[in-house]
């Protein structure tokens, strides 16, 4: 019963969303050129399955690499910034300011500097999902309850020990907020990079099929992207369940 529900409910949600969309295109008589109906998209996918899957694979590679780099560097930066508050006061505003520079404006510079390979795309992914990871991890690292940080201090823990054994595990549930937001942004970042520099990936499919007015193909790519993003999100959520079971146990 619970098994059925756990698979059934998300399916129900997806089917409902598709139904609303389909009904919308029919009721309002929207042309596939503007917004294709689900069958148009399925048809487009069946026209080019191998191509779409190959490009999806390349998007995943860029996304995951960039996300991985962002998580590691973001985690380290958050640790450094929370360990030295003076440094935080000096650098966080700059970080916030840099983060707000539109990635679309940065993308051309990246291509000029790094060329047309995967590098500028990965850099863009890192830039886009770095910030939520840092903000969430910092919030988590500064939320250690007084009694635990007193425990840590009373045991004369080194800064590193305090982080690894107490502050970081405690921060994990909050950090995962950043990771979940970050993974979604990472996918978006990869697509933005691919739209800008369409040498491959689903972003390239979207922009190229868009300019050739093959809207159903563009939407097939978008649908794949949505699937992919959802899968990555739930992968992260699954990792959370695995790593912080205690968090669910002490909250209710």
């Amino acid at each position: 019963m619970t098994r059925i529900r756990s698979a059934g409910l998300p399916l129900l949600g997806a089917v409902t969303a598709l139904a609303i969309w389909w009904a919308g295109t029919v009721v309002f008589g929207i042309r596939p050129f503007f917004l294709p109906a689900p069958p148009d998209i399925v048809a487009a996918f069946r026209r080019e399955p191998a191509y779409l899957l190959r490009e999806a694979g390349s998007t995943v590679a860029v996304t995951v690499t960039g996300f991985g780099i962002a998580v590691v560097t973001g985690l380290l930066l958050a640790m450094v910034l929370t360990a030295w508050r003076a440094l935080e006061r000096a650098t966080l505003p700059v970080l916030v300011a840099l983060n707000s520079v539109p990635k679309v404006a940065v993308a051309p510079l990246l291509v000029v500097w790094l060329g047309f390979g995967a590098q500028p795309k990965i850099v863009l992914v890192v830039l886009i999902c770095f910030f939520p990871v840092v903000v969430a991890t910092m919030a988590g690292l500064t939320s250690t309850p007084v009694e635990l940080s007193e425990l840590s201090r009373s045991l004369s823990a080194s800064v590193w020990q305090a982080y690894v054994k107490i502050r970081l595990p405690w921060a994990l549930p909050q950090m995962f907020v950043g990771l979940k937001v970050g993974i979604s942004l990472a996918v978006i970042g990869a697509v933005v990079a691919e739209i800008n520099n369409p040498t491959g990936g689903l972003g390239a499919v979207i922009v190229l099929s868009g300019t050739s007015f093959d809207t159903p193909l563009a939407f097939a790519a978008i649908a794949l992207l949505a699937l992919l993003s959802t899968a990555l999100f739930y992968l992260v959520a699954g990792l959370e369940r695995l790593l912080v079971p205690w968090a669910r146990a002490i909250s209710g």
Partner: protein
Amino acid sequence: GDSGDSTENGSDKVTYLTAFGAVGRDAFAWVAQEKGYFRDAGLDVTIQLGAATGENIKVLSAGQAQFANVDLTGAWILAGKGQAPDIRAFAAVHQRTLVSIIALEGAGITAPKNLEGRKLGAATGSVNQLLFPGYAKLAGIDESRVEWVNAPPAQLPALLASGRVDALSTFLIGARGIEKAAGGRKSVVLPYSTFLPGLFGNGLMASTAVAQDDPDLVRRFRDAALKGLRYSLDHPEEAAQILKKAQPTADVAAAVGEITLMAPAVDPSGAIDRTRVADALATLETNGLIPPGLTPESVVDFAVAPTA
């Protein structure tokens, strides 16, 4: 609304989309606005900045704008795919396509043949790339030896200037801006029209609904806009200043450059001749860009086109 709403003073409210942002080639619309040509024609025009051909056509088709300046060649290739069948041109701004190859002097590109083995940048999925095989065949280039690089339009000059690509395929009127971007290096321009003389450049378009419901509105708009176009050609400097006033980001020198560079390709009467349209469609057809069967009537509304 389909054919524009009337304001209190009796003029018709319409929305017009430029071809691409706010640069010299589109200055005439602001000139027509500034000089009162639209007002005199009983029009209250809102000028919106357009994006690529496809986006402009979508906006027209959705009725969010009544008129737009669009690349006719690109629009007709789309028409050949059966997309947006409810859009018609009603005046030509550029009698021949301005698409060109632009390289920097000293890069060793002085003739089409030099492009072989080089990297060529163009706006993602642009018409320029679709036309290139035809151009290459006539210019005697081995098309397979040219490597294309897709990029957003705004990014192209940077790619050329930084040497990431060897040449661009873009509108020749952008040459001055590209030279500015390249730090003053002179450019080499190889127009497609040398080998593909029959194709049109930009033109004014409207949806069939507007053209049928209110042909008079279309004519009034057409004449006012073309009057602005003529004035711009006669007074490039003033036109550029008017543009700058309306859009502070505009660059006067580059705008003057565009207007003077496009002048030879412009007939201020906006003439769009049936036989020339048929020719253009035939060129597209022989290059495999459109399937056979597209008639001039299905892409141009001659009822509201200039009669010159």
